[in-house]
């Protein structure tokens, strides 16, 4: 029963380190109980998707790209999310993302490239080895986390799809399916679905841009953007689009969701920048989560979220107050 819920696109069983090694006892117990319960109570199956359908991944540690800052605990990373497709409360995605089915999953590749087409996720990922990168994630709402992602460099996947010379931008889309995503059924949502994001080609090819399929050594929980999501750590979190179903290579700069919604508050670039405030709050500092109960855990926000060395050259000569 449990096996069935696991996405099939992850590595074949033989290449994967036995899951039992990764599982701590508590998780093993809930997994077992979940499996037993789902045998008897069909309704419970959904509720368990997000937490017990996860599978251990095989990867190497890319320490050269990793911070040694204290990681945000797994429980917090999976309980506190912005994923408006499932509601605007921070706890909504953990509650409702189990209603989304991520297996099978395919990604439509289109636009200015030599290899367009509909890719089963496993085919898109097959040529690549997984690595783990511990990145800072800075939300535009002035909180941040440190998360160990598992995935592949975006540049490797882009090379595989062979964009042509007209491809100046990469555009991404999240799944749009109101039946599975209750936030998309909301009457007063001001987001025009599907959720859209984009990068300039040189940003997308930067060594830091990453396609994550897992975190903390296992496949992504649904609320974190399963089965595949973008991670661009020098930009505000909303650029790191979740549950990707479409990749388009474009000549023109694509319209992105938050820019469409409030262009004076959110720009296409959305680079982390303590010098450019959000119109409704300051971006000089951030609360590193978990924050204290009695005292908030404020730390200084750094330019490009501390990745200035790797990405500052992309924006040479650009007025970042204008192109925020």
């Amino acid at each position: 029963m449990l096996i069935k819920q696991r996405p099939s696109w992850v590595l074949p069983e033989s290449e994967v380190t036995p899951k039992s090694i990764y599982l701590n006892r508590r998780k093993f117990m809930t997994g077992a109980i979940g499996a037993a319960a789902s045998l008897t109570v069909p309704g419970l199956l959904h509720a368990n998707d997000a937490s017990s359908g996860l599978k251990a991944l095989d990867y190497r540690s890319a320490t050269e790209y990793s911070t040694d800052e204290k990681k945000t605990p797994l429980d917090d990373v999976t309980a506190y999310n912005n994923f408006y497709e499932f509601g605007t409360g921070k706890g909504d995605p953990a509650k409702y993302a189990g209603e989304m089915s991520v297996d099978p999953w395919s990604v439509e590749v289109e636009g200015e490239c030599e290899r367009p087409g509909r890719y089963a996720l496993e085919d898109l990922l097959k040529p690549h080895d997984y690595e783990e990168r511990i990145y800072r994630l800075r939300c535009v709402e002035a909180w941040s986390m440190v998360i160990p992602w598992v995935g592949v460099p975006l540049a490797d996947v882009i090379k595989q799809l062979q964009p042509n010379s007209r491809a100046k931008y990469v555009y991404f889309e999240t799944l749009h399916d109101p039946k599975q995503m209750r936030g998309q059924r909301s009457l007063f949502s001001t987001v025009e679905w599907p959720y859209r994001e984009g990068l300039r080609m040189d940003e997308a090819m930067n060594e830091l841009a990453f396609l994550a399929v897992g975190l903390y050594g296992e496949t992504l929980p649904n609320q974190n953007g399963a089965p595949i999501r973008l991670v661009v750590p020098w930009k505000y979190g909303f650029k790191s689009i979740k549950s990707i179903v479409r990749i388009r290579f474009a000549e023109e700069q694509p319209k992105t969701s938050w820019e469409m919604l409030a262009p004076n508050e959110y720009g296409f670039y959305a680079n982390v920048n303590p010098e450019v405030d959000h119109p409704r709050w300051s971006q000089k500092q951030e609360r590193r989560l978990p924050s204290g109960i009695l005292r908030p855990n404020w730390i200084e926000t750094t330019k490009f979220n501390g990745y200035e060395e790797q990405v500052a050259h992309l924006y040479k000569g650009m007025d970042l107050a204008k192109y925020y």
Partner: protein
Amino acid sequence: MAAITKRVMAGVAAKVMVFCLALVPLALLISDILTGSVGPDPGQAITERLGLTAFQILLLTLLITPLKKLTGWSGWLRYRRMLGLFVFFYASLHILAFLQLLLGWGDLWATFTKRPYLVMGAAAFVLMLPLALTSTKGMMRRLGRGWKPLHRLIYPAAGLVWVHFLWQARSDITEMVVYGVVLFVLLGLRVYWSGLSSLIPLRRG
């Protein structure tokens, strides 16, 4: 005599019950804090919950007059002052939580000048201050006919709180719309029954 005492007792019991009910949101919040279930950003969560409770009780307070009108029972009025003071209580906790748990007494000036929706909240609180201070029997007596026009300040205060709430929205405004409709109906009923002038504070008539 016995009948009167019984009624008084029932009245007191009802008041105690309302008092306890109004403390339930605080009790739940404290229990969530103690069991560590407020999440990884407790300051934000606690601030939001206290603010929302204050607003909810504020709407309950505004429901009293319509209830009286609709049921013909003026007993509802007995709970209005207590509820009003609970609004002030939760709003004060909300602001304290914001300052201590969320902001950590950081740059107050920048905080308020950068975030106009906070100014709305602060303005609402400033309007509530005189209401809390003049809620005692003694003050009511002293203000006489001036008490009621003064306490109509709760209407603009409620509007400001709603703006404070709406202005924070990043995308989905369902919750704000729902609260807005409730507030609109509560104020609209007054206009319907007593005319627009019945909403204007500080003016006798």
